[in-house]
């Protein structure tokens, strides 16, 4: 189950890459900018702004999940409120998405076989070769769909294409052991240093994550540490010190990327009928980003750079 496939991805690993986004994540990071990546199920997004009130979705829905109120109601509700989408009734069958002519209803979550994904991946093969790029499997959390991830990694590597796996680190050690030989570079997320904070911000404890990082490192994996930094949320001195400490502990890390928060995901919550747990966060400013960098440099961490 994937929710997106992006060609010419320039920010998820080295070179020019194709990024496959797998659906489902064990974490619930408060700042998540891909809320549709969290659930393992298919989801339907609804953008009232695009809806033309044509009623096609009402006609095809057997559950009665779509309802269009008679137009006089617009006087009190506003035109955008006339289309009611009752998610509690929805079975995610997707018929309304097919029927919608206006892209107001869209589905997140498509079943694809590894071979189907490979067909897309192959199209840019020559761009990977010239740029040192390849395939990045990300999500959500790819380790939740271990069989698929493993199959895709093997197929990709068998064709000589470079592989990156982005992971939050929360899966069994056995799972990591199984993918280890097929991943050329791990993009390993590091979100908070203090265990209590980690739990508060992501919903899970970080002991398992740190243990997996250590396991991968000790077993020779090439690892790029990726640290999302959200101003006022996890950019405290303690966490920056934690990043610096990891850099010291693991001198052979392929690199450390700071990923400054960007609020592009805000509008997505509404579309999926979700509640944004941390609304109103500001995109990180240039000054703040430079302050992080110099703080890390001050702690002796030269490897960190902005991603």
């Amino acid at each position, binding site marked *: 189950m994937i929710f997106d496939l992006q060609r010419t991805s320039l920010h998820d690993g080295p*070179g*020019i890459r194709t990024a496959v986004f797998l659906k489902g994540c064990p974490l619930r990071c408060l700042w998540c900018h891909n809320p549709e990546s969290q659930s393992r199920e298919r989801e339907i997004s609804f953008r009232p702004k695009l809806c033309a009130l044509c009623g096609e979705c009402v006609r095809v829905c057997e559950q009665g999940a779509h309802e269009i109120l008679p137009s006089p109601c617009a006087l009190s509700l506003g035109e955008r409120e006339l289309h009611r989408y009752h998610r509690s009734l929805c079975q995610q069958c997707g018929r309304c998405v097919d029927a919608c002519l*206006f892209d107001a209803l869209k589905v997140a979550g498509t079943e694809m076989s590894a071979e189907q994904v490979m067909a897309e991946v192959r*199209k*840019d093969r*020559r*761009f990977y*070769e010239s740029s040192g*790029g390849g395939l990045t499997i990300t999500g959500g959390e790819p380790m939740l769909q271990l069989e698929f991830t493993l199959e895709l990694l093997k197929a990709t590597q068998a064709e000589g294409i470079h592989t990156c796996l982005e992971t939050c680190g929360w899966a069994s050690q056995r799972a990591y052991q199984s993918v280890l030989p097929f991943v050329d570079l791990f993009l390993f997320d590091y979100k908070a240093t203090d265990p209590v904070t980690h739990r508060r911000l992501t919903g899970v404890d970080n002991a398992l994550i740190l243990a997996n990082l250590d396991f991968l490192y000790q077993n020779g994996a090439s690892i790029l540490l990726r640290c999302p930094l959200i101003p006022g949320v996890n950019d405290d001195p303690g966490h920056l010190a934690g990043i610096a400490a990891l850099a010291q502990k693991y001198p052979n890390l392929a690199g450390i990327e700071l990923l400054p928060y960007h609020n592009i995901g805000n509008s997505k919550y509404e579309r999926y009928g979700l509640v944004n747990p941390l609304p109103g966060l500001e995109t990180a400013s240039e000054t703040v980003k430079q302050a992080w960098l110099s703080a890390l440099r001050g702690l002796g961490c030269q490897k960190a750079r902005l991603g």
Partner: protein
Amino acid sequence: MKTPFDLELAFTETYQRYLRDDPALREAHCLWVLLPPLFDPPQPGDLFAGRMHYPAVGFSLELASGGPLYYCHAERILPHLDALHPEERARVQAMLDFWKREATIEGHLLSRLPEETRRATSNHVAEMGGRLAGTLLDFEKLVRLGIPGLRAELAKARRANGDLPLYRGMDLALDLFVEIIRMYAVQTGGEMRQVLENIAVRAPETFREAAQLAWLYALVSGTVNYGRMDVYLGDFYAADLDSGRLSEAEALALTQSLWRLIAARQTVFNGRVYLGGRERPNEANADRFALVAMEATRTVIEVEPQLTLRFYEGQNPALMEKALQVIGEGRTFPMLYNDDVNIPAVANAFRVPTVEAEHYLPYGCGEYALDHRSVGSPNCSLNLLKNLEVVLHNGRDMQTGEVIGFSFTPNPSNSPLPQGEGLGVRGESAFPTFDSLWSAYARQLEYYIEKLAERHRLEVDTEAEQAAFLFCSMLYDDCLARGKSLLGGGARYRGGLIETYGMVNAADSLTAIKRLVYDRKLLSLEELVAALDADFEGYERERRLMLACPKFGNDDPEADEMLCRVSDHVALATLRQAERVGLDYFLIVNINNYMNVTLGGQTIASAEGRRAGKPLANGNTPTAGNDTQGVTAMLNSLVKADPSVHAGYTQNMKFSKSLFREQLHKVQALLQTYFQNGGAQAMITVVGRGDLENALRDPASHRNLIVRVGGFSARFVELAPEIQQDLLMRTLY
């Protein structure tokens, strides 16, 4: 009595005096009257002599240098007529009347055009003007031989072929050229004067002399593209630098001055200077000049010269590195042309051996020709999307109401250009299958193409009868040896080109019709046409369906195959005409200037979801905003059409400054792979995100924001609003 049009009158009298003479002699005498007063004195800071203006009546090659041919721009004279003394007014009026008959295009050509040909080439699908664009002179020969050397060549040819009027005309033309050089020498002083005096009597010996000679020759000839400058100036440049005659800073200053003069000439769609590529005998020296030329383009912020870099696998990488630096700073130059794709493609399309194809040069907006070997002007335009509109409406242009195409009925009789509407059924009954629609579309295009080719041949013959193009002929293979003028059998290859527009829109529309009407039967053809006629008012559902169909530019097989189908058909139908009408080549180009906006304005809504009057796609680039699958997918689509059956498709792309600044190696990889995959060329605009939007709000502080429109670059703030909107819509990667 003096009028503002004394020069025009004197020119006209000279023409009349030599009316019955050989066109070569007539031209020489006309130029003697015309040219000297057109040359303006150097301005402060100019390091070369040579600025000029153009009168309302005269002789030249094309509009960009005053013309076309023997021309009369009555619209520049008429507003002043009333202010003239009655006697003078009568003389001027008589002159206007005379040129109505006698102007090469408006008079001679139009008067001999068969009515059917005229109608078939004067409508909103197929339109034809007249000019001689795309001359590429042998500047290398000029600077190698100098004026005395050219004289000697002339004498040699005369010994072989006799004292032809053509040779006498050329002698007179060279006398005139020397006269103009001396005229400037008198006006100026110092080193500039010395340079001018030297080149009047001997071959150039320095970089400055060679550049001066070439520049003045370009002006007298009326040509508006400046040849492989790295080849013809490279040795002079290297020798001057190595001997210490010139410092690098001085050489750069000279080049910058030349660039400013080229820019001041304002030839807009022309002004090409070529660097790099195969077949440069002095490659190392040429490379040295190429780097200075690119530095001049980086530092002189102008929209001309349209610097063009040819490259091939194995070329000195410093050239491409420098090119990307200049492009990355937002100069839109140099434009990049891949020899490894273009040379074999040109060899095939022009039907010439590889050794000839190695001399291909893209002039103007991107039309290929063979350097000082071929002459083939693009004088007609073909709106491929409008053709579909006319086919779907039983021969009718839905904007003007005129019947300009075939009547397609259930039993097509296909009489050419019906007088009235035929049995008048639009829709299903006429086209029961997609193939029947396709063949109607293809058949009608062929008809227009045939007529355009016939008219082009007629134009070449008319022009050859009227003029010898003396200055061009002297520097074109094989005019001297054959004793024939450029178009009168002298040029080694004589051809012609059709500028096509709306190819991508036509293909995307056909894809949508095929899918919606014939494959999935979601709409009837009647419903679809009704939606187009209504400009989608009340047909929002239908428009959504059309927009949702695959579009060119996304590496989508269905959409890209249709593009190839349209491209191949138009290209091959055109290529076949050469033999039929007796030309060495007749080919299409898919380039752009601002015609995508103009012709889009003449075309009603179309089945890819485009609203009435909106711009067409730009060259072979996806319709603005339709490429949504990332730049690799877009680049993969661009290389799908066969490059070896046409004379140039332009590929415009817009990248962000941040991408160039922060991920240059990825940009390099993108372009390198695109070219290895078969990319023939790239025109790259680099702008900051938000730059265009900010420039609209605050034009004054964005004067230097230069963008690539199509076949030309422009200051964004000076463009018409609809062109600005088109540029904003294009995907920024």
